[in-house]
């Protein structure tokens, strides 16, 4: 392609150059439309169509349309508790009487919502102080720490469960420490509390991340103005800073609710079947091949989570603050300059929080590291030796460490290359003004909210088995399909980190660029993207994390032995001995930590999610 210096050069090649430029200009003019079409095609091919093939089974039974599955589900107290009794036509008075007499029954769906609400509260309680520290204090390693807040996203639940057992179990680290102080022991495993803490382990970092970003983009001048008008620090926080944080806090909360509502392995590994959630039953019904009920249940799950997302998006649209922090608030040093009471009290609080964070976030990971170097007879490197041996002598059909690492990185890079443009284009489309756009936005978030097993089965039946047309079967399989599926899962995160930026941009900027003759795509790339770049970088970090941690669609789409990833290797290495799996878990942890720090540093010192 001719560069700018080739333009206007005479000679025989000129007509070609002209044509190339015309083609390029035409492409550029239509770039957004092309990307939108490409995104839609990919979503239809690898998400909506496959998922629809499964969900349709809830309303089409033996070729006839029916809503019987839903009717039955809604009237089943097993799922809907007292609500089901009302829907089944019992008198409200009788139900109310039972509830007042203390015989309330939540049902599986009610219980799932209940634990998700508690998980969200706990995640907020643990995430917000972290955001406060990261946004308001300066200390060595702050940036690295902020990069690493995304780490829990890649950790397979089995690893977290192992870490939690070693930390919070009867013989765990926590009880050992407590007994040294003459306290305890506490019984945490197999309780709702254990599940809630594990959910906080996954989601509090997310809350911290989005809130930190919002806090860092608060304009210091607004606070200074409030203070100069006589507001105390607390009042200034309540009236000036806090309103700018609410959208981010609510987004963290809404996503946490959605993720914990659809939770499955953590609940069963740390709580047991008595705490089983809706997703557990969706899995079971799918395993029994009872698709009618499984699909109906998955739709109920989807309706609830999409409802929460939709409510949040409505709120976000109304409350986005339309000014970006030109000058962020100055950070304080973690070590106080002059030890006055007002300086010391918040730092004391930080100290207490740091202890809690150490127990909840650091010790499970440390326990996992420790498990990877211990065997039946003390410290050993046997598990890492196993990985080396597997690499050297493993059979072709067996999972080996290096290809798993390589594939994970290649797939993550591919997913990144696809999901960033997809996410940006969807953000542009959903921040334009038209009726019902929040509905479109919510629907485009569906990959966050659909049950993983349903997506898996849908992919299997759709793209993997292929479609038969005129005697040919068109099938999508292998590495490219995995990358595309990862991109579909990742792009909602890009949208959620980029869209609020677009929303708060001054539209006159784009109008001016357009008036000066820039195409819509050029205005996007040259004007808008640099302004929302921190959000794009944050989206990239999320996309990488999701792709590296992805399990369910990878295992369905990996048709050959050269397509498995690190999480699949971990799953395969679990047997009666934990060692090899934890060693592989440590490899995963190391590889992804390095990736995140690199990605975050690419964002420069700028503020962003």
């Amino acid at each position, binding site marked *: 392609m001719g560069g700018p210096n080739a333009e206007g050069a005479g000679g025989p090649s000129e007509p070609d150059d002209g044509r190339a430029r015309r083609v390029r200009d035409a492409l*550029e003019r239509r770039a957004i439309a092309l*990307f939108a079409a*490409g995104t839609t095609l990919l979503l239809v091919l690898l998400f909506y169509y496959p998922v629809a093939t499964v969900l349709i089974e809830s309303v089409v039974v033996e070729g006839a349309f029916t809503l019987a599955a839903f009717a039955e589900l809604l009237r089943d*107290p*097993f799922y809907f508790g007292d609500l089901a009794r009302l829907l089944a036509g019992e008198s409200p008075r009788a139900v109310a009487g039972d509830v007042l007499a203390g015989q309330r*029954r939540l*049902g*599986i769906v009610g219980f799932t919502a209940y634990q998700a609400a508690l998980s969200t509260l706990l995640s907020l309680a643990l995430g917000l102080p972290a955001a406060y520290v990261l946004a308001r204090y300066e200390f060595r390693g702050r940036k690295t720490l902020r990069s690493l807040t995304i780490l829990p996203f890649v950790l397979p639940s089995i690893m977290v*469960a*192992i870490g939690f*057992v070693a930390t919070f*179990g*009867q*013989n765990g680290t926590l009880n050992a420490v407590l007994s040294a102080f003459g306290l305890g022991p506490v019984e945490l495993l*197999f309780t709702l509390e254990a599940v809630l803490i594990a959910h906080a382990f996954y989601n509090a970092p997310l809350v911290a991340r989005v809130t930190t970003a919002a806090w860092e983009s608060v304009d210091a001048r607004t606070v200074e103005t409030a203070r100069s008008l006589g507001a105390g620090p607390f009042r200034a926080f309540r009236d000036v800073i806090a309103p700018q944080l609410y959208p981010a806090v609510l987004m963290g909360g809404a996503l946490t609710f959605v993720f914990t509502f659809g939770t499955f392995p953590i609940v*069963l590994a740390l709580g*047991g*079947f*008595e705490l*089983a959630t809706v997703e557990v039953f969706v*899995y*079971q019904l799918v*395993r029994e091949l009872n698709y009618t009920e499984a699909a109906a249940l998955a739709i109920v799950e989807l309706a609830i989570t999409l409802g929460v997302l939709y409510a949040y998006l409505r709120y976000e649209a109304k409350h986005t603050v339309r000014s970006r922090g030109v000058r962020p608030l100055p950070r304080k040093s973690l070590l106080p300059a002059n030890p006055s009471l007002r300086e010391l009290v918040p730092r004391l609080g930080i100290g207490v929080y740091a202890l809690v964070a150490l127990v909840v976030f650091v010790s499970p990971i440390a326990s996992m590291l420790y498990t990877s170097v211990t065997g*039946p*007879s003390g410290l050993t490197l046997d598990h890492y030796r196993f990985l080396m041996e597997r690499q050297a002598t493993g*059979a072709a*059909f*067996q999972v080996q460490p290096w290809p798993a690492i390589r594939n994970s990185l290649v797939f993550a890079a*591919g997913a990144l*290359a*696809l999901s*960033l*443009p997809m996410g940006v284009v969807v953000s542009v489309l959903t921040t334009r003004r038209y009726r019902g756009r929040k509905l479109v936005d919510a629907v485009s978030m569906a990959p966050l909210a659909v049950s993983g097993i349903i997506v898996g089965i849908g992919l*299997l*039946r759709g793209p993997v*088995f292929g479609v*038969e047309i005129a*005697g*040919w*079967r*068109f*099938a*999508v*399989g292998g*590495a*490219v399909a995995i990358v595309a599926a990862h991109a579909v899962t990742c792009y909602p995160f890009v949208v959620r980190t980029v869209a609020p930026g677009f929303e708060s941009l001054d539209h006159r900027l784009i109008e001016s660029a357009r008036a000066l003759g820039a195409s819509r795509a*050029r205005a996007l*790339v*040259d004007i808008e*993207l640099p302004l929302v770049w921190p959000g794009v970088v944050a989206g990239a970090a999320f996309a990488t994390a999701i792709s590296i941690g992805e399990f369910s669609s990878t*295992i*369905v789409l990996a048709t050959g032995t050269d397509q498995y990833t690190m999480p699949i290797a971990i799953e395969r290495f*679990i*047997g*009666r*001995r*934990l*060692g*090899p*799996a934890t060693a592989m878990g440590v490899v995963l942890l190391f590889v992804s930590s390095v990736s995140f720090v690199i990605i975050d540093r690419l964002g420069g010192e700028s503020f962003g999610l």
Partner: protein
Amino acid sequence: MRRRTFLESGVAATAIGLAGCSANPVDDDDADDDTLAVATYGSFVDAPSDSPGEWIKDEFEERHDVTLEWHTPDQEINYYIERHNEDVGIEPELYLGFSPHELVRVDRNTEGELFTEWDEGGLEHADDVDEEFYFDPQDRALPTYSSYCAIVYDGRTVAEPETFEDLLDPEYEGQIALSNPQEGTTGLLFLLWTIDQFGEEGYLDYWEALLENDVRILDSWGDVYTQFEEEEVPVIVSYSNDRVYAERDGNDLEKHRVSLLNDEAYANVSGMGRFADGTNDELAHEFADFVLSPEVQAVIAERNVTGPVNTETDLPEVYEEYAQIPDDPVFFDYDELDENLETWLDGWSDVVAGGR
């Protein structure tokens, strides 16, 4: 600069997107007589400790001068049920390693035949297979290996539970873990065992009592075993040959003790079936005969830690010494499972998870 990468990445993505699709003629009959594809579950060929898959592949290839290909889809037998129902065709000749309850699932969810009958006349070693291991009334499942569900307990910290009632003793409160019967095999075997013990009328009462005693129901046998290894729970539902593994792996045998409740254990048999779509009957039969031969049965016993079905097998010493085999195994046959399994499981899940 950024614009360039932005546009180019899109073009590249479209290009690889197209490259990832494949289109094949539907009647693609590239059946290769020199390759035998066998489907099984993952850990049969790829376990961190040891698994028989690799040895079987090498040995069979050498003896028969063919290539053996393992297929291990994550959804195991459900994957082939799906393929059958979607009419997509099944590549492997046979599936190795399914249990009676899985065969029930196959039959309830497929129209027509997923598996077809064996021609036992063509199998040299079939006569030596113990009759008691046959579980398919239609002779599509050839017994392959057996195992028994039993209690494994940490002999250093708790006393041996000898009966089902013992498990309700306050001594074991919060000390017992088992896998979810709807998901994990051992959990299902234990549930069936309790139904055999207490009858259809009584098993739910027994489970209520177990729940009162704070029994832990986790997702899979792997989760349960993790808790046992980490010494969080000293009593688990596992397999009667646990000590074979413990001995081989250098674990403390006092920690790995096995209890056969009432001197019984629930039998689980794994079978292999020949896909009805198969195109190479001869090779499939050769493979089956190979698996049933005493020599291979002994290797499977050692590397898969499961018992042989061929009565002529010379058991490896470690197996002979450490595996416990009940005199009188408990089990439900295919017809009983076919008729009742769904009801039994639904009843169970109502009692355990329904009270919220």
